């Protein structure tokens, strides 16, 4: 690692291009967009037609010039290290080109030609700077502070099942992407985000709302895309370490450099993280509810320019986690061990033709392996938790081109193959699907923009499905943008819902069977004389259909003054074929036998508000709020019809049982009606001081039924009380910004609740970071 940094020290490079854009008569052209196609660097020309692009890595580039009333133009330029090239450009007038020029100086993304901020559904970006200011270490810590997102425990799937909830959808409905490609490895649908370090992340992009149109199955609630470092312009190295409460250590080492005279660049980073974990349960005499763990991550990227047109990109990430949680409830000791390995790798060929056509050809591989078991130390009985190895291979070709300076069309075609080897399934399982998608982003006029697209997917088991989406925005006034979108989502049943054969010997002895195994396994149980009754619905068990959703979203962005912006967005997600477990048989001991059904319809609707205000120089106040109604339509209908247990509500205070009303129904468990956050960030540049103070609020949410079982959360059931969490951080840079010291405090007032096993108490960490070169 250190050798690497020494080696690259010699090759710092930073070239510059400048010049004047003139028309065929020699007059300066103001407001022309000058962009390097390969890197996306650039800007608009001044009144005098001048442009300057600096900090360019040596190499061969195509520079595109767009200006109103002129023909689009591409010029080739060769740049040597530290060269200051003067490049005058002359453009020809074209009376057919009177549209406003789209000045997009955003850095061009080699991993995905679709800009995630340009999709129909609302999106947000968490920048590197924001993550650094917060002082967060793991991805779950960053995401749980965002509006409409929550990290929730799935108690029924074991003490290690924790995941991200987005707009009221369970973790299983949000796709987690790394550089645009899906990550795998879930525990009963829950994706534990604490396995991902944020140390080497450039930014996090979040789309809220169905995004199957671009990403296929699973992107029903939305998408979280982790973008790793993409652009390297100079040689540098960084070392950082943080230490604090719960013996938490977060150590990072990274180095990056261009090489081969600017034709190539590389970046490599390592992270070590450990924590003792945290216990929120007063009944535990030993052990944690946030398990202790040690994790290593190594990740890197290499880029090599094969020619002026073709660039190769390689990305790789390997993460390993080891966790042992020895638990004791003043006796009854158990040990819960987890080992997981996570590998992601990509080889990408980026082709940028001078016509403006960009093509990305990619092969992606991910492997996730986990082994987790709980051993009872008294009886040596082992309760299997999660034991599987999952592979996903994916090949994809993407192409994008802008037409008439206003319409960008991006299309892709690909195929993926997935294998699953799980101890709880009989034999290895696999599935394959192929897909084709296209998205058009059209700036119809200065006031109207339209984004539309579709995805056609063919699955080896579920056949073809089409998921379209469409969004429109309209800007009647300079300060107001109105937006509306409709999108579709789907989720194919996961391996577990098809193949699981699981009897929980530790937790009641109930059995869960995947639909594909159901008939054979039920027969086995019957032949063994274990079944006492088979319910009529057992005959209805059939091939599961994919879950489908339609997301509607409408809102506005209001910017009355430059320093203040407010975003208001209403959303409504209608889910069909919702997959749920239902009892199909009883065993002789009364234990239930469950399988999966496409039963109910659910809806998740609400309002998402975000605002940011530059209150004073250096002081930004940002706030967010989400209102959510998450309900199962089947429950609402059953209450109305007075079906079975749903007909009554029992009030334990008065010992009265009465007819239930629809208003008694709080909604799905784990969902808060209200969530809010406010963030103050302050930056005092002369002294290099930055600080943040954040408050997060989560309204009460249902934990489980209590009193009497009636199938839904009524006002007398168990709820997790509403709470506020306070976080603060302060950072100061020293030695000409080479060094930074930081102090972070999460959960400042040490709020704890045993009903939130995954919420750690107060954490105070001190950090030191040093940047070489």
């Amino acid at each position, binding site marked *: 690692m250190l050798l690497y940094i020494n080696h690259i020290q010699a090759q710092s490079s930073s070239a510059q291009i400048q010049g004047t854009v003139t028309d065929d008569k020699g007059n300066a052209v103001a407001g022309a967009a000058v962009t390097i196609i390969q890197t996306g660097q650039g800007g608009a020309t001044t009144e005098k037609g001048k442009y300057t692009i600096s900090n360019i890595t040596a190499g061969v580039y195509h520079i595109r010039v767009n200006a109103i009333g002129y023909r689009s133009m591409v010029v080739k330029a060769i740049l040597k290290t530290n060269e200051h090239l003067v490049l005058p450009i002359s453009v020809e007038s074209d009376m057919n080109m009177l549209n406003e020029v789209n000045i997009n100086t955003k850095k061009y993304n080699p991993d995905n030609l679709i800009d995630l901020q340009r999709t129909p559904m609302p999106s947000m970006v968490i920048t590197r700077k924001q993550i650094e200011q917060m002082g967060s270490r793991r991805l779950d810590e960053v995401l749980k502070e965002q509006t409409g997102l929550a990290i929730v425990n799935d108690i029924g799937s074991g003490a290690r099942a924790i995941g991200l909830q987005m707009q009221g959808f369970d973790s299983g409905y949000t796709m987690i992407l790394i550089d645009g490609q899906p990550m795998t490895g879930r525990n009963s649908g829950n994706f534990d985000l604490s396995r991902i370090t944020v140390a080497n992340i450039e930014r996090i992009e979040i789309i809220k709302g169905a995004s199957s149109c671009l990403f296929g199955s699973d992107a029903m609630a939305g998408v979280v895309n982790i973008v790793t470092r993409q652009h390297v312009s100079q040689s540098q190295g960084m070392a950082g370490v943080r230490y604090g409460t719960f013996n938490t250590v977060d150590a990072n080492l990274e180095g990056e450099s261009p090489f081969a005279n600017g034709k190539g660049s590389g970046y490599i980073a390592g992270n070590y993280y450990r924590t003792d974990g945290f216990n929120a349960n007063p009944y535990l005499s030993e052990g944690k509810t946030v398990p202790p763990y040690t994790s290593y991550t190594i990740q890197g990227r290499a880029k090599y320019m094969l020619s002026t047109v073709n660039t190769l990109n390689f990305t790789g990430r390997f993460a390993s986690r080891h966790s042992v949680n020895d638990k004791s409830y003043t006796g009854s000791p158990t040990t819960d061990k987890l080992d997981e390995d996570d590998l992601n790798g990509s080889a990408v060929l980026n082709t940028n033709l001078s016509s403006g056509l960009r093509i990305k050809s990619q092969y992606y591989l991910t492997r996730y392996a986990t082994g987790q078991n709980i051993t009872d130390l008294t009886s040596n009985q082992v309760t299997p938790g999660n034991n599987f190895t999952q592979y996903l291979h994916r090949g994809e070709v993407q192409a994008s081109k802008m037409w008439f300076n206003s319409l960008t069309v991006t299309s892709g075609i690909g195929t993926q193959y997935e294998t699953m080897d799980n101890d709880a399934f009989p034999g290895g399982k696999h599935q394959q699907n192929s897909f084709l998608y296209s998205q058009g982003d059209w700036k119809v006029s200065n006031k109207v923009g339209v984004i539309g697209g579709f995805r056609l997917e063919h699955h080896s088991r579920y056949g073809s499905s089409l998921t379209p989406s469409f969004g429109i925005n309209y800007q009647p006034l300079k300060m107001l943008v109105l937006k509306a979108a409709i999108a579709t989502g789907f989720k194919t049943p996961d391996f577990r819902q098809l193949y699981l054969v699981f009897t929980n010997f530790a937790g*009641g002895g109930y059995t869960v069977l995947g639909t594909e195994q159901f008939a054979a396994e039920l027969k086995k149980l019957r032949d063994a004389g274990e079944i006492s009754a088979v319910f009529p619905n057992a005959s209805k068990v059939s091939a599961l259909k994919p879950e489908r959703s339609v997301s509607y979203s409408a809102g506005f962005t209001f910017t009355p003054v430059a320093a203040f912006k407010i975003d208001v967005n209403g959303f409504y997600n209608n889910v069909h074929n919702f997959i749920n477990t239902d009892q199909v048989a009883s065993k002789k001991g009364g234990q239930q036998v469950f399988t999966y059904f496409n039963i109910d319809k659910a809806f998740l609707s609400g309002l998402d508000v975000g605002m940011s205000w530059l209150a004073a120089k250096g002081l930004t106040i940002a706030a967010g709020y989400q209102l959510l109604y998450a309900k199962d339509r089947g429950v609402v209908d059953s209450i109305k019809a007075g079906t079975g247990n749903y007909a009554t509500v029992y009030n334990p205070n008065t010992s009265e049982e009465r007819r239930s009303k629809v208003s008694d129904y709080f909604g799905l468990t784990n969902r808060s009606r209200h969530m809010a956050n406010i963030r103050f960030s302050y930056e005092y540049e002369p002294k290099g001081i930055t600080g943040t103070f954040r408050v997060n609020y989560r309204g009460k949410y249902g934990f489980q039924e209590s009193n009497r079982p009636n199938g839904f959360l009524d006002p007398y059931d168990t709820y997790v009380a509403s709470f506020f969490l306070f976080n603060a951080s302060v950072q100061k840079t020293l030695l000409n910004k080479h060094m930074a010291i930081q102090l972070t405090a999460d959960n400042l007032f040490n709020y704890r609740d045993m009903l939130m096993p995954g919420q750690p108490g107060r954490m105070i960490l001190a950090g030191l970071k040093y940047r070489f070169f």
Partner: protein
Amino acid sequence: MTKYNYLKTLLITVASALLISSCTKEQVKPQLQDGKSTVVNDLPGDVGSTISSGFKTFYFSFTTNAKIDSGQKKSSQWDISFAREYNSYVGINNGTNDASLGFGGTGKGSMVVVNKAYDQVTEAPSDNVFTSAAITSAGWDSGNGSGWYFYDLKTHLAVPVKNRTYVLRTADGRYAKLEMVSMYKGAPAVVTDLNWPAPYFTFRYFVEQDGSRNLSTKD
């Protein structure tokens, strides 16, 4: 400058208001001691067994407030049995009821469900009720209306049915009332771990020694 002061005041006000509301949430357990009843905490069942291995039944006496050796099964020494899954099925000792584990013995036990809070059950029901509505054991309430716990479908944890009290005739024919509180160790108000140690029984009971139907435990 005044603008900043205003902002500062606002910040302090908001922060202190929030501070007050930010404290640790405790899950409060109900007080079981009432001065008259006997409270049993964390009586271990056949701990370490699983559904596949089966659970060994044990027998409990209200008179000695202790487990009784299973060799005494056919006697009137015990009042309630803990059988089946997680020892969670509480049964009576009745020599003439073939569903009772005391069948063929001398026990005179019987049991009825009263859907009232424990302290509000002040009198044993009439013999008629004991004849028409008697149950032999109470465990998982899968909709039968007589069990003492149910499973939450999301968390897969056993939750006690609230305000459900059992009125018993003990093995020697005295009236008693029984409330089952928890089968999890420590009897937490809410169980938050799928692997919380079980079965450890917490329950309380009151036996009317004078043989009358008076079951009041209020002072």
